[in-house]
């Protein structure tokens, strides 16, 4: 699984908020976090998580772009986030798989775990996210 050190049950992730939900992505999949005050870099595949999750019309503010390390040939990939939060460690055994049939395509998640009384959705890497959010 992405983000898990060999021989370790710990998963180091960057957490962020988007659309009122709490997400995480493995730190080894993160290239850079950049303020969304300006536009994304030219040629970036932007997965607008904040916009996709907007409920009742207007999305909340996009605070930053989280650039991911893209393993494929799709070019740079960035997520929008309301705000990046912190780097934490999760125990692998606490991550519950999310059934794939909940989604139109493949699951965008490696799993979900409880964190600070909320559900923390652990996102898959850039290639998996592009595949899961393509319509």
């Amino acid at each position, binding site marked *: 699984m992405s983000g898990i050190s060999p021989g370790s049950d710990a998963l180091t992730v960057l957490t962020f908020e*988007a*659309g009122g*939900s709490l*997400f995480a992505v493995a730190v080894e999949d993160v290239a850079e976090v950049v303020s969304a005050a300006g536009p994304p870099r030219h040629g970036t595949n932007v997965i607008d*998580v904040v916009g*996709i*999750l907007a409920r009742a019309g207007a999305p909340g503010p996009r605070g930053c772009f989280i650039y991911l390390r893209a393993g494929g040939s799709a070019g740079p990939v960035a997520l929008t986030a309301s705000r990046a939060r912190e780097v934490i460690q999760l125990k692998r055994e606490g991550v*519950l*798989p*999310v*059934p794939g*049939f*909940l*989604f*139109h395509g493949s699951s*965008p998640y490696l799993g*979900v775990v*409880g964190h600070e009384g909320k*559900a923390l*959705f652990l996102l898959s890497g850039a290639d998996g996210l592009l595949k*899961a*959010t393509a319509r």
Partner: protein
Amino acid sequence: MSPAPHVGFTVGGAPLAVEATRVLAVAPAADVVPVPFARACFPGVLLRLGRLVPIVDLATVPSLWNAVPGTGGDQVVVLAAGEIEAGLLVRQVETLTPGSAEGDSGAAAAPSEVREAILWGAIRARGRDWGLLKVNTALAAAGLPAPPEPQGGSRVDGQEDPARG
């Protein structure tokens, strides 16, 4: 022999029932955790016994209805469907003992707004008619990997099973 107890509820305003033995739990809908990016028929998941139980709003699956129903619910009925568990988003959960109340005699009619394909038939309890839900068929229509309906299905003792030839 006394009739088998059932659990009744409404989905999109339609009164439906399942055998009580299939019901694993009833929980408030407030416990459902929304899953971002999930399909519209899945309002979220419920954490139960260390596993995530998918919750389905059958009212959002058009193929199950003759008339467009209202959606949403304030309770969840968790059901067993083969080896999987799934919850239905419902309203007005109550226990039913068919034929035990005044006004329960006579033939029951299935709710007209629900497609017959997901009903075994109907029962009458508490002076009201309830459609007997084919749980696995309904869940499969929502995209869950539910197994085929068990042989014999769901029926009230003394009542013909309409799904059997």
